């Protein structure tokens, strides 16, 4: 059984340090943009958010493929949590993108910015994932179908960006390329540190949610087992009267041997 919680505290501490350094660099070290001024600083939040969310979607596709190949449901859980987090980050991307567009172009939404439009399409697609996943009842099938979705959607992400980008470049000139070579060194350094901090933050949240989901899963399983045990008088209890089970040491108690709770009965 996979252990998800290992190293979480260390990772969280490193993340906190990285986020702190990134914030310090954004506000104290990076120079003010010549024509956008202070608003341009949202760039250090918006672009890392977007790149990390997209990388999370693609990684979820890879994890889905691993689940389909290996049949190990831990990969399905990883893929699910990655998509869940990336979707949440996606809301942040759309909101910060809208704020930035409003500040620098005067409109909340700009259709001629292909990256934003492509991101919206990807977001709309992934918003269906929970709907698909939780409308399938059988757990094995649920994981398999969700993984097929993750693979197909993960392959769709780069295609979508390529086509929306080229659609715009045919009609509109590329007005906007901040991430290009025209960025001063301090800005680039700040951006790279923000990028690392965001990636670490994503990894920490991913690990945290994995651990929590896995723990609540296990808790549910144990609780169900305890209920079954309480309902069946012939099953031996850890507390006492264990000899009663000798008459039918068969199928239902088989798992009872593995369940050696350190604190005894509940």
């Amino acid at each position, binding site marked *: 059984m996979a252990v998800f919680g290992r190293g979480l505290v260390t990772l969280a501490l490193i993340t906190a340090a990285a986020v702190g350094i990134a914030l310090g660099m954004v506000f104290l070290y990076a120079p003010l943009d010549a024509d956008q001024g202070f608003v341009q600083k949202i760039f250090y939040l918006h672009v890392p958010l977007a790149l990390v969310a997209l990388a999370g979607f693609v990684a979820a596709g890879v994890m889905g493929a691993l689940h*389909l190949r290996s049949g190990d449901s831990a990969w399905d859980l990883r893929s699910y949590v990655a998509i869940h987090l990336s979707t949440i980050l996606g809301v942040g991307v759309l909101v910060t993108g809208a704020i930035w567009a409003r500040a620098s172009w005067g409109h909340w939404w700009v259709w001629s910015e292909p990256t934003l439009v492509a991101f919206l*399409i*990807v977001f*709309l*697609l992934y918003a*269906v994932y929970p*709907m*698909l996943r939780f*409308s*399938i*009842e*059988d757990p094995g*099938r649920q994981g*398999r*179908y969700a*993984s*097929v*979705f993750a*693979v*197909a*959607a993960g*392959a*769709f992400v780069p*295609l*979508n960006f390529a*086509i*929306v980008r*080229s*659609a715009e470049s*045919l009609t509109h000139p590329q007005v906007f390329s901040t991430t290009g070579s025209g960025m001063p060194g301090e800005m680039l350094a700040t951006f790279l540190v923000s990028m690392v901090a965001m990636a670490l933050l994503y990894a920490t949240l991913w690990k945290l949610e994995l651990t929590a989901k896995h723990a609540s899963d296990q808790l549910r399983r144990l609780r169900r087992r305890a209920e079954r045990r309480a309902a069946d008088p012939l099953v031996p209890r850890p507390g006492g009267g264990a000899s009663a089970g000798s008459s039918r040491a068969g199928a239902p108690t088989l798992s009872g041997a593995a369940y050696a709770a350190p604190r005894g009965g509940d």
Partner: protein
Amino acid sequence: MTRAALAILRKDLLVERRTRESVPAMALFSVTVLVLFHFALDRDSLDGALASGVLWVTLLLAAVLGVGRLFASEREEGGMDGILLAPIDRTAVWVAKALALLAYLVVVEVVAVPVFAVLLLGPDLMPALPGLVATLVLADVGLAAVGALVAALAAESRARELVATLLFLPLVVPAAVAATAATEPLFAGAQTADGTGRWLIFLAAYALLFVLLSVGVFDYLLED
């Protein structure tokens, strides 16, 4: 696999010919949407970008109806059990369903495009026809590939039609972008259709990607 796929396809087309469930509904729906567009836009004739957009939105919405019904007979009459019991490659099911959807789309377009030309299109259809047919065929292959995959994905969920629709529409946005862009100069009356060829290549690449993707993952959907 070819024989199995053809057998399932023949079954689907036979069921469709006898029950007339999907194609007439799709064709009727597309005509109704065109009428709606006339009133919603309050225009008697369209050209250029608007015409191409109206045509493609209509066709995509009609395709949604077909996608929602694609696995109806398997689900309601227990046909899937029979297919799963047969010793055939599961991908044959996807091939058959995609081909069936492709056939439905072609029939719907044979009805909807002339109706569109009569009711709404400003410029003459005839000079645009070769380019339009090429765009329609390439886009249909992509739509059929995506549609069959999405229909199978949604077939096991409780809210089938809803999930199928919501999955299908974002996935076909790239196809819609390329198809409308390829059709736009044809409806603008321009003879120099620069860029159309490039968009056709995009449509072909889109179709190819989803064919490969579906063949790669479809096995896992019917595994029971």
